[in-house]
């Protein structure tokens, strides 16, 4: 089976996306105490209804936000507001939620969740976990799958440009991989990765990632 590679157009799109991500964390600096308190109120009164206390969501439909990088969160909030992130739950929930947020509120909310300590999710089937770990760390050349760890880090902790994946819900990760595969999220690099992923491998990687700790 030929190895699938990321095309030049996708790479250009990815670079543009990364440049945007890289520019965002800098804007998080200088959050006033008043803005922090306002963000905390919004997080407790509204965001927590789905994303849980301090971003530790219990319902796997909604992503864990605790410990996620502020730059990534900010980019997502901008994408929701601009309605460029088009996976179903983004449309149904977050387009509306982000509509009324201004830039300073987005920065403060992103900062709030990035400061919460992350937690590991429950462990899954050991066989799946082993397969997921292998794909995550080493990829699968025969299937044309690059190692996820190259961007998301060996512990899936992410960095300022790539999201943290460790401890994320299986259900949420699976839905996002499918969304990338169907190009609903307009992230070229992940579309390139996910379009060759079989559902079984998506599940294996997701089960592995959910089990990773802080």
């Amino acid at each position: 089976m030929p190895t699938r590679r990321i095309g030049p157009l996708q790479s250009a799109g990815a670079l543009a996306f990364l440049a945007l991500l890289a520019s965002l964390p800098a804007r998080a600096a200088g959050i006033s105490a008043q803005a922090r308190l306002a963000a905390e109120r919004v997080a407790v009164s509204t965001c927590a209804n789905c994303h849980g206390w301090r971003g530790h969501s219990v319902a796997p439909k909604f992503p864990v936000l605790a410990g996620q990088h502020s730059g990534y969160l900010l980019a997502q909030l901008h994408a929701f507001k601009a309605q460029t992130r088009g996976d179903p739950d983004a449309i149904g929930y977050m387009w509306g939620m982000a509509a009324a947020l201004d830039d300073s509120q987005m920065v403060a909310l992103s900062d709030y969740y990035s400061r919460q300590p992350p937690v590991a999710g429950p462990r899954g089937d050991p066989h799946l976990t082993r397969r997921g770990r292998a794909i995550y760390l080493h990829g699968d050349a025969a299937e044309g799958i690059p190692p996820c760890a190259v961007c998301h880090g060996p512990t899936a902790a992410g960095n300022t440009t790539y999201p943290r994946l460790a401890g994320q819900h299986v259900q949420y990760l699976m839905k996002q991989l499918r969304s990338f595969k169907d190009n609903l999220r307009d992230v070229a690099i992940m579309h390139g990765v996910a379009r060759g992923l079989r559902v079984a491998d998506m599940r294996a990687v997701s089960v592995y990632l959910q089990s990773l700790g802080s």
Partner: protein
Amino acid sequence: MVSLMQGFLFLRNITIVFIAMLALGPPAHAVPSFARQTGLACEACHTVFPELTHFGRMFKANGFTLDNLKQVRDIDSRKQQLLSLSALPPLAAMIQASQTWLNQSLPDSTNLPARSQRSTIGVPQQLALFYAGKVAPHVGAMIQITYANDTGTIGIDNTDLRYANLALLPNDHGLVYGISINNNPTVEDLWNSTPAWGFPYASTNAGVSPLAATQIDGTLAQQMAGISLYAMWNESLYAELGVYHSAQQGVTNPITGAAGPLDGTASNVLDGSAPYARIAYEYQYGRHDLEVGAYGAGFRLYPGGSSTAPNPLSGPVNRFDDIAEDLQYQFIGENNIVTVAGTFIHESMHLDASYISGASVNPTDQLTTTRFDANYYYRRTYAITVSHFSTSGTVDTGLYSAGRAPGVITSANGSPDTRGWMGEISYLPWLNTKLSLQYTHYDQFNGARNDYDGFDRNASANDTSYLLLWLTF
């Protein structure tokens, strides 16, 4: 033959409406003014309307005030908000069109042994206008005004005015607290296991209703007004205390012709205030959500009278003490949703007024209602529900009287016992469009399976088929 032709015409009309809707394309949201206000799809707050998700419950607890629309604002020199008003008013409408078939037609009310028609068409059965949304930064309202084909008039329906706020507790925990002014105990409740928002979410108004129901089970809905204080800690522990007073609609003082005060020409008037209390705990685990709770109220009612037979609002009263437990479980998956809800209501009656007047033969009676429903939704498009209901209590030939011909709404043996099953299937081509077929079967009606009214009518004669088209927009 006439009913068959009417049925055919009704089905044809429903088909035409559906085809027209298909041609027009899908509407955006299911609970329109809330959805328009928040920008969230129906599924954020509802599994399938009107049943709430956890997020929907919190939206309600927070006073319907979450607003993502452009606002008309004003602030003072200290940056305090003086006004925050949605650019568009949160208005919505609802229409129910239905056809009801009774298993056995009713006797003609004036000309026995002639019979009534077997089916009833309601187009509309109900037509309602809502103001549902934010009023001010911490104030919201859900006000429903409804035209119903049985009364042929427009009247006030469920109303819930709220103030809500958040106390930020240490360690990022939250205490939502608020005040609700409403006209129906449990209409302000957050779960679908209590009477006002419990299954069935819609039912026919062209069937035969059993004689007995507890007071908290909608008996005094829209005839009372109450204020309650509530608090919800950490999205899990909920407590509420309230008091209700009589607030009858369409009743005037005979001397002044004004809306009140009530006197002996009004019936079922509360003596003073009726206390209401509620406590509930909700636990979320993964895709599972479990609620257990209790609620109760105490009503002291003067029987009163009418303009032709007044009865002063003084002396003995009838006391109804209602204590209830409820439970709700939800599983919300991507494609599959299961909701199971139930309540157990026990009413203890001290009928001092009715016993003296002879309206009841016992000084005290008991009445117990048990109801549960299990719902399965597939992709929020197809729904199937099974429900069991049961009301039983003390035999009282005064309270549940044999009455006169033609019977139907009487009890030959003075027993209030009624029980049966309901089944419902629904199809929602869009989240705000529901087509349902509901069937109600009675094992027992007003105290008996056979000849319950003493005029040869059996419980199963009141079995009802109900076809409903329910649109909210």
